């Protein structure tokens, strides 16, 4: 007879935060957030620079103590059981901190030793992980000559060396070219398929849509919205968006003239966005008013639009 789900310990959240606060002097980086992450989930913190994502990640990673609120990671207290929790985490920090004195393989074997693995086991896992992140042919290279994408993949391999229950990725693809990003996403997706729980921060909407089952939008240390990418788009945006440009004219002027078309009109510095269920119908309505935009683009609504709606600002400046 199958055990009921509620009785299984796996149903306990891996991360549980209630009213979590982090202050640095007078500055409040994280301002009372509630978060729960279930096993096997890919969870995202989405927000611009300074939203409090990294501070939250450092508290979850047990390298920074909460100023106030409750936090439980893997059912333990991060202040008291920090070392025990960190033993089961894989951390990929925002800025690569690979060991430039060591070779690619040594970066993994040395790191494995911090988790108390034997030399032999460290070596075995290093070879396996280098295969996984497609760096086996660079095993004996130093770190410096590697490309940004390769370094990132090595950092992710390093985060996997202790076979963690929970993987923390702080802006895993920031600064990478599109090809490197797609390769990395593909690897992370495979990690998720293997059953790893992923928690990531990003300020890229496409990344959040690609990787996250569920996410929170953070702004100014608070959570502005929570849900799956799809449900957030459905709640805070319309299915389609028309991006209209009017040559050199001030978009704000045109926004007034477009009022009433679609669900909502938003003027950005260089273009006007028209949110509508049917983008093509909205374009037709714009032309019907005798307006002639220099270009129009109809696209699906994205998390970027959610963020714009929630905060009135674009995400990446």
């Amino acid at each position, binding site marked *: 007879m199958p055990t009921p789900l509620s009785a299984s310990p796996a149903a306990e959240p891996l991360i549980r935060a209630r009213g979590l606060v982090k202050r640095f002097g007078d500055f409040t980086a994280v301002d009372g957030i509630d978060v729960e992450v279930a096993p096997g989930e890919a969870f995202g913190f989405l927000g611009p620079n300074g939203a409090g994502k990294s501070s939250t990640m450092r508290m979850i990673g047990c390298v920074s103590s909460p100023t106030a609120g409750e936090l439980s990671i893997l059912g333990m207290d991060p202040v008291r059981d920090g070392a025990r929790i960190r033993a089961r985490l894989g951390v990929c920090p925002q800025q690569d*901190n690979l060991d430039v004195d060591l070779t690619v393989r*040594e970066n993994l074997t040395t790191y494995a030793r911090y988790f108390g693995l034997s030399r032999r086991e460290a070596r075995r896992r290093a070879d396996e992980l280098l295969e996984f992140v497609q760096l086996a042919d660079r095993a004996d290279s130093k770190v410096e000559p590697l490309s940004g994408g390769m370094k990132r993949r090595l950092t992710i391999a390093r985060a996997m060396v202790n076979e963690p229950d929970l993987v923390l990725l702080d802006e895993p693809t920031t600064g990478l070219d599109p090809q490197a990003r797609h390769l990395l996403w593909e690897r992370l997706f495979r990690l998720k398929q293997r059953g790893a729980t992923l928690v990531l921060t990003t300020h890229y909407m496409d990344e959040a849509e690609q990787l996250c089952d569920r996410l929170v939008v953070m702004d100014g240390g608070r959570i502005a919205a929570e849900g799956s990418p799809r449900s957030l788009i459905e709640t805070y945006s319309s299915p389609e968006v028309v991006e209209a440009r009017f040559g050199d004219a001030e978009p704000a002027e045109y926004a007034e003239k477009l009022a009433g078309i679609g669900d909502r009109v938003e003027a950005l510095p260089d273009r006007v966005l028209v949110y509508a269920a049917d983008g093509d119908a909205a374009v037709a309505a714009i032309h019907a008013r005798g307006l002639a935009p220099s270009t129009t683009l109809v696209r699906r609504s994205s998390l970027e639009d959610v963020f714009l709606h929630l905060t009135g600002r674009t995400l990446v400046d």
Partner: protein
Amino acid sequence: MLTTLLAARLPAVSGARVGAVMGRNVASLRSGPSYWIVLVSGFFEPLLYLLSIGVGVGALIGELRLEDGRVLSYAVFVAPAMLAVSAMTGVLAETTFNFFFKMKYSKTFEAILATPVGPLEVALGELSWAVVRGSFYTAVFIGVMVAMDLVSLGWALAAFPATVLVGFAFGAVGMALSTLMRGWQDFDLLNTGQFALFLFSGTFAPVQAYPLGVEILIQLTPLYHAVELVRGLALGSPGPGLLLNTAYLVAMALAGLLFAARRVERLLCA
């Protein structure tokens, strides 16, 4: 009582994790020639002083009469002091420049602290590695002293553990100071301090040669105790005073280590 108090306040230290931090340094030592250059240069400095001043100037001075009435050649007097200096400089190179770089620039400790390894284990691992490295210098230096007939083999072996203690003491304090450094320019201050200690700690002349006030001042500084301890053993005349020197160095090692660990935690685990 004191031990229970310490045990309650200190985080658990795992030997395996301290060993892993040391292991990182071993791996990086193997990785390139630049490191070996630093390693070798650290050894030659005290040796050159021994040859130029101990032997060179010593030939002019001839023999030296100590306070207890013993008469010995100047080189025999200076050599143990250079051994103590060698123990100090070898370890300091690692726990100042290298430690600072790893803490501030290469983010090595940040990466380590994301694992179960804690700040005290990082500090202890770095210090232990520095002492291992420094002990290579002192072992070779002792070999030179024995070969030049400046110390008997038996007393040289007795002096070796003392140099290890000197390494722990200076390494720990150097590491503590490194956590306070704002940038490379602050290391000039450290170098000046180190050089002053090197000149006046009873290294080249018995401290009794100075006015009483200066003598007392010197007796408060660390290298004096290192020189006294190492010289007392190397000259085969250990007295009860060596216990005081030992206690001074042990206190230095513990205070420096705990302070450094605390600072690493404050700087990197904010």
